[in-house]
């Protein structure tokens, strides 16, 4: 497709599906027409509700049993140890159940749960969770660590800290320290974490199935602005990571500018950082040549969730290690 044809096609599709034209142009360039149409269609479909059983409060099997008695249909998510699709249709919201108030489960998207499984936190480690609110991943990390070691959760937004605290209390997390502050300044904490999770604030382009206003609410300038912030955050994070440590970088954006491009720059700036394979069976490989731009080949080891391929919100997950001995 020539540039002119692509623009014309994008204009037509953007009008038809009520997107900004620049977005469709990029989808066509990334995926071609057929997959773009599938993507646009998938974004109109609801995302299945998913929950994580919180074993800090209750054994997974018992929560499953209690919910099934209340006629909630549950389906185990194959690659997640405590993740389930949950059909709450005909009930009030998933948050109104007694089991939720008791902290037996957390309503959480499949990609978010997957991010923590990829991080693979271990008991007694020191873990840094950057941009941590509302706390789904912080509480999941604590769960994987059996409440041992320390999870340092950093969040800038004062209002979002309330939800972070509330979820930590509800889920019975006792190994967390919550700090309000700018994650770009983490070197001031004098920590050398074994693992870092950075689910970076992003343009949210992957969330269109959950938030249709995203079709028109952000410009390309917003994507670039987010990319600058993400680069600064990831740079700060890899700088403090302990030698031999692991970092997982994730966003709920599908834009390569916020994902593969960011990681590629980090690999150039920090030669001791390496992308490592993700030993879980989900998603599709990240891109090493998005829009014809050659990036580090190892970016194919990162993973993407896409609405039209996986029935989830769009998400990017990349696991890296810092060479050296712990």
């Amino acid at each position: 497709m020539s540039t002119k044809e692509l623009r014309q096609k994008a204009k037509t599709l953007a009008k038809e599906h009520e997107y900004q034209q620049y977005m469709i142009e990029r989808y066509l360039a990334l995926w071609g027409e057929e997959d773009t149409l599938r993507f646009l269609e998938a974004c109109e479909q609801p995302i299945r509700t998913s929950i994580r059983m919180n074993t800090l409060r209750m054994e997974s099997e018992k929560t499953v049993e209690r919910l099934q008695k209340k006629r909630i249909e549950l389906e185990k998510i194959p690659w997640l140890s405590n993740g389930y699709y949950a059909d709450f249709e005909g009930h009030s919201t998933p948050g109104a159940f007694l089991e939720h108030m008791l902290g037996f489960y957390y309503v959480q998207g499949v990609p978010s749960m997957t991010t923590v499984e990829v991080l693979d936190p271990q008991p007694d480690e020191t873990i840094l969770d950057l941009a941590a609110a509302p706390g789904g991943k912080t509480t999941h990390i604590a769960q994987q660590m059996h409440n041992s070691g320390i999870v340092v959760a950093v969040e800038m937004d004062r209002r979002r800290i309330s939800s972070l605290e509330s979820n930590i209390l509800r889920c019975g997390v006792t190994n967390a320290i919550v700090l309000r502050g700018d994650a770009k300044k983490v070197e001031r904490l004098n920590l050398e974490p074994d693992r870092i999770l950075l689910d970076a604030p992003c343009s949210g382009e992957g969330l269109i199935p959950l938030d249709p206003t995203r079709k028109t609410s952000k410009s390309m300038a917003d994507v670039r602005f987010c990319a600058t912030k993400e680069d600064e955050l990831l740079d700060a994070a890899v700088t403090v990571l302990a030698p031999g440590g692991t970092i997982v970088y994730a966003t709920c954006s599908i834009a390569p500018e916020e994902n593969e491009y960011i990681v590629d720059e980090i690999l150039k700036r920090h030669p001791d950082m390496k992308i490592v394979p993700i030993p879980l069976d989900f998603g599709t490989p990240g891109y090493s040549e998005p829009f014809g731009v050659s990036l580090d080949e190892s970016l194919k080891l990162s993973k993407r969730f896409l609405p039209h391929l996986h029935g989830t919100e769009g998400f990017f997950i990349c696991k890296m290690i810092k060479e050296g001995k712990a």
Partner: protein
Amino acid sequence: MKPELLDPIEWETIIEAIDKEFGIGVTKKLLGKLTPMALVHGNWRNIYLIPTSWMDMLFEEAPSGFDYHLVGKQLGVMTQDRFRLSLQILPDLVKLTTKVLIVSKQGAESFTYGRSILKQSVLYMDFNLKRGQRVLVMDEDHFCLGIAALSMDASRLGRLGKDKLVGKNLVDIGWFIRRLG
């Protein structure tokens, strides 16, 4: 919020407040091998229990540009001269006290919506409990839903009409949802 060690007098006040309501020695058991500390915000002193190994890290000023908001296990909040237990500590407390009130399924639901407890919802309560006593409110499966203050002596329960108030809701786990909207 600024981290502070508790002075012995403040800690004694907290021990007294908890033990008086839930039984002698309960606070010591809640503490276990942890250390009490406070995050101070104006007149509010949020009391947390932390592993001693965290002390060195916390008792320096928060790093420039950062502010502590939560550390370890939340025991409760001290406001002026009153101590209020945190919802987070209740599952631990349940194992250590007999000051409980068990309510029916309907009563449990109503309580988690912030309502108080009526006679018709009460399934079990110790006969010796007196008016004003704080009790842990539990559902039929013995999960703790919050704290109530008895509005009458338990010995009078049999003489009450079914729509009469038994326990005033002080705090309940529905707060987690109401707080976030």
